[in-house]
């Protein structure tokens, strides 16, 4: 029994040593693709509210098309489809796929966040002589961002987990490394248990970080931060 336990500990330690160096890659893929998703999502979300019908239609179509296709297909399409045309490496293709896919979800979150701001805020800003852009930039979006922190954080955590899908195109991250280890050593239970545990540690860390962010951006008496 003691032998078995010692054996297991050694095995887990061995897997752990194998997996831990790729954890930064999973983090890098997630952070890069989510940064892309944030920028694209904010732009698309704002454009969806445009009074210009063509712009509103195109941005709406973007959201519906991107959202309607599985992430795995995005990855294949961008890596094998566009990738062969544009000569994209695995990292770029993976980050683009996750980033574009999540930008559609984020656009909807940003749009609803902007919609949630009372109309009087626009009127007050515009009566002070602000242009529509200045109103969005200084009055509406700062308030919306506080509202959307929780749902955006949700998407961030989801994108961390979904970054495992890019292992399919051979981009070396946590899931890929798990498969490598497993295929060499056939320790299925232990490997996937540890891969899962590492993802869990990362997502729980993020959850804590989000709680902290919410408290930093909380304004007395504003929105859900009401004390």
């Amino acid at each position, binding site marked *: 029994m003691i032998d078995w336990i010692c054996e297991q500990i050694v095995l887990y330690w061995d897997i752990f040593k194998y997996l831990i160096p790729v954890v930064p890659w999973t983090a890098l893929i997630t952070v890069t693709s989510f940064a892309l998703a944030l920028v694209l999502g904010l732009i698309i979300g704002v454009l969806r509210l445009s009074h210009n019908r063509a712009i509103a239609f195109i941005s709406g179509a973007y959201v519906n098309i991107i959202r309607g296709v599985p992430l795995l297909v995005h990855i294949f399409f961008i890596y094998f489809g566009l990738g062969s045309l544009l000569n994209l490496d695995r990292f770029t293709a993976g980050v683009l796929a996750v980033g574009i896919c999540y930008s559609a979800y984020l656009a909807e979150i940003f749009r609803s966040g902007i919609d949630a701001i009372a109309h*009087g805020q626009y009127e*007050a800003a515009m009566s*002070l*002589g602000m242009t529509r852009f200045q109103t969005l930039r200084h009055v509406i979006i700062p308030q919306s961002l506080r509202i959307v922190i929780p749902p955006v954080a949700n998407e961030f955590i989801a994108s961390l987990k979904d970054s495992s899908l890019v292992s399919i195109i051979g981009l070396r991250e946590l899931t890929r490394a798990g498969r490598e280890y497993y295929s060499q050593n056939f320790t299925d239970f232990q490997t996937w248990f540890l891969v899962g545990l590492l993802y869990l540690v990362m997502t729980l860390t993020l959850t804590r970080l989000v709680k902290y962010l919410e408290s930093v951006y909380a304004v007395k008496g504003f929105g859900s931060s009401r004390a």
Partner: protein
Amino acid sequence: MIKIKNVVCRFGNIIAVNGISLDVERGEVVVIIGPSGSGKSTILRCLNALEEIDSGEIIIDNFRIDKNQKDIHQIRLEIGMVFQQFNLFPHLTVIDNIMLAQKVVRRRSKEEAHKKGMGLLEQVGLLDKVDVYPEQLSGGQKQRVAIVRALAMDPKIMLFDEVTSALDPEMIGEVLETMKMLAVRGMTMLVVSHELGFAREVADRVVFMEAGKIIESGTPEKIFDNPSRPRTKDFLNKVL
């Protein structure tokens, strides 16, 4: 200073403003009274191009007001507006509320905007609230901050849209005092209000509106003590 000619403003089938003409001179204080739904707020909002007019013409300081005009925001910054619901920016402190448009629109430096804001806050007795968020203020304090925010832009005209209607009775006085101070200094003011005492004391002219039209206008003495139209009498009897 303000020329309103035959202005009509519709919302779908409802005619909110039905052919209004009104001229306001520089330094004049005009108070618009009337039952709710009479179009008095709408005409005020048309002046600031927050509503689009369907026909007629509004000219302020030789500028034609048109909601769809590209540089309408440049005309708006000459017109301060204070709302019933305050509309302070909840994510900014009092002083940041006052400084934002000064910096962004008037292109003032931070120091200049701050100095201007502090000066005005002192005049309305709110220096101790500089770094507080709007939610922590009473209604009367909020409205005084909103007035200061508009004044900091050095507007030529101030529009007040039922600014005391959402306030507790004991806070109405402090806001009216602030408005009186402005009137005394010669600000051109258009005030939609139910405060008839204020109108009598401060207005140069009182306008009575009903169903989108001006029924009667004149000095406060004439409107309150000797109204010529039966509808004006009716209204005053009901509210006094």
